[in-house]
């Protein structure tokens, strides 16, 4: 266990104590309270750990995409998160807001064409 604890760890855990004061009174006429423990980690650190993990290197996308099955862009594909409209719209919004600060690669736009066979059977 000691050796395990010496290994580098992921995002650290923190504990916040939350004191809740209720509206009921105890026998002495004081408001009753309850103490709660909130164990959590910093979500920013969590994202750092995820996005920087080399194990995911080949499975990560950094830019939104609009994917079509045809060359004219008539049939759009929706599968991964980055092919949806939310990411695209959010990226455009960010770019418009921070024109000065943001480098252009953030809104790099790719339009890929996939030529894949279509099957329509289900199971």
């Amino acid at each position: 266990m000691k050796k395990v604890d010496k290994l580098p760890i992921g995002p650290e855990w923190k504990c916040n104590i939350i004191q809740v004061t209720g509206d009921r009174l105890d026998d002495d006429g004081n408001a009753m309270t309850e103490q709660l423990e909130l164990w959590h980690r910093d979500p920013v650190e969590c994202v750092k750990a995820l996005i920087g993990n080399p194990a995911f290197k080949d499975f990560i996308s950094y830019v939104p995409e609009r994917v079509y099955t045809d060359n004219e862009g008539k049939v759009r594909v929706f599968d991964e998160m980055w092919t949806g409209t939310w990411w695209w719209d959010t990226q455009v919004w960010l770019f418009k807001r921070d024109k000065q600060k943001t480098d252009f690669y953030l809104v790099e736009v790719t339009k890929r064409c996939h030529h894949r066979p279509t099957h329509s059977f289900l199971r």
Partner: protein
Amino acid sequence: MYLTIGNISKKLRRQPSTHATILVGYLPVAKLDCYSEATRSLQGYRLFHHCMYMIFECLIKAGTKGVEMVCADGWIRLVYLILAAYVADFPEQCLVACCMENRCPRCTVNPTDRGSPLASRLRDKNETLELLTKHQQGKDPPQFEKIGLRAVYKPFWAELPHCEIFRCFTSDILHQLHKGVFKDHLVQWCTQIMGEKELDKRFKAMNSYPGLRHFKKGISSVTQWTGTEHKEMEKVLLGITIGAVPSRFILVVRSLLDFIYLSQLQYHTTTTMKSLETCLKTFHDHKDIIIERNIREHFNIPKVHAIIHYVDCIHSFGSADGYNTESPERLHIEFAKDAYRASNKRDYVEQMALWLQRHEAMWLRESFLIWMENRLESMIKASDVNTMDEEEEDHDVHLQVVTQRDINITHSHIGDTRDKLNLNVRYSLAKSPPHQNLMVEKLTEKFGTTNFLPALSTFLRSTLPGTMITPSNRDRFDAYKQVVISLPSNQYLGERIDMDRVRTSPSVNASG
């Protein structure tokens, strides 16, 4: 409370073993005995938002200014963290949206209009916050009641940048479709129209067929409805209703089943989304048959309403397998149940966190070692190019041998058809045919192949134009019981390789 990022492919996010989803916190379970019963639930909602605020407060800055992060490919990027999707069950969605549970967390639909196919106005963050503030100041705006808000004055999402929380709620196929629309409603309607006995009888009377579950005792006695049971029943329900219910009701059944299947596709296109919309329309066009038959009086059903938001959701966030509730439930087993078991059950949260930290440390070390190993390997390879080339050649030759042998075995009796075959389609047969030297009459008797000779001739002519072989009654044939074909990958269903098993056994009448 779990967290993941949309940058990672959904294929990885789905597998718990890849650790692509991180536990960010254990929310406390409070008894709240210090509150009187009347205020307890509302205080619980407020407490939840308070805890969530404490965890996610740092996202306000990280979403506005951005944080520089080292990415997996070695580049440093300025990353803006924005809450995009919130995967939760219905009560939790209402809790987050600060709305009553007879409302929709996404839109402002009136509780009595939830059966309508018309889309209502979506909830708006600023409007909601304004109403909450007014209510807190004692102004009591009528709109507050109208859209069914709860008096939670500091929702955790209030300051999160670019986060339209009401659009973050994702569709939940397991609870809304399989358990909700299918089991709680569709199966109920069928039972009421056909009667429990008839429905059971028809389930029993289904032929047993490989790949389909045969419900020997019908379905009314099923007590454990797991996801698998739902999926098995969905496969046969349509066939079971034919002839026992009015044809318009069959349209209802079919459109809902189609909707359930289509929404599970792992690859959507504009076309499949149109089909989804069509299914929904067919359902709404014909659902009045259920009222006509006095089965229901109205359709104010939260789950029937929820499915009108599916198309929108897939449009925004990609296909629904990227955010279904089955994967977090699987994670829950590891992160909560296993961790709890490892503790001494007193002050367990701290121990659970430590347990998890240790497990993660070991996993980190493991993936680091794998990474090092790969690096070492590629370094060795780079320094010795010659050896690598030879190895590759060897490999190629070997592969060719395998493909050729396969073809020889399966098609030796027909001759050289190698050019015609698509080499990607692989199949396997038993080593030696279990039935040998059968006459055509025997084939018909054993396998019910009434049109065998004409069909074989057609097949031979189309596969081998110019062939001299004409099968006749005097020929004898070897027969296999089954052939397993590996199907070409289908992007709608993800990347797994499916095997299709074609069996030759004729149908056997069911005992029921």
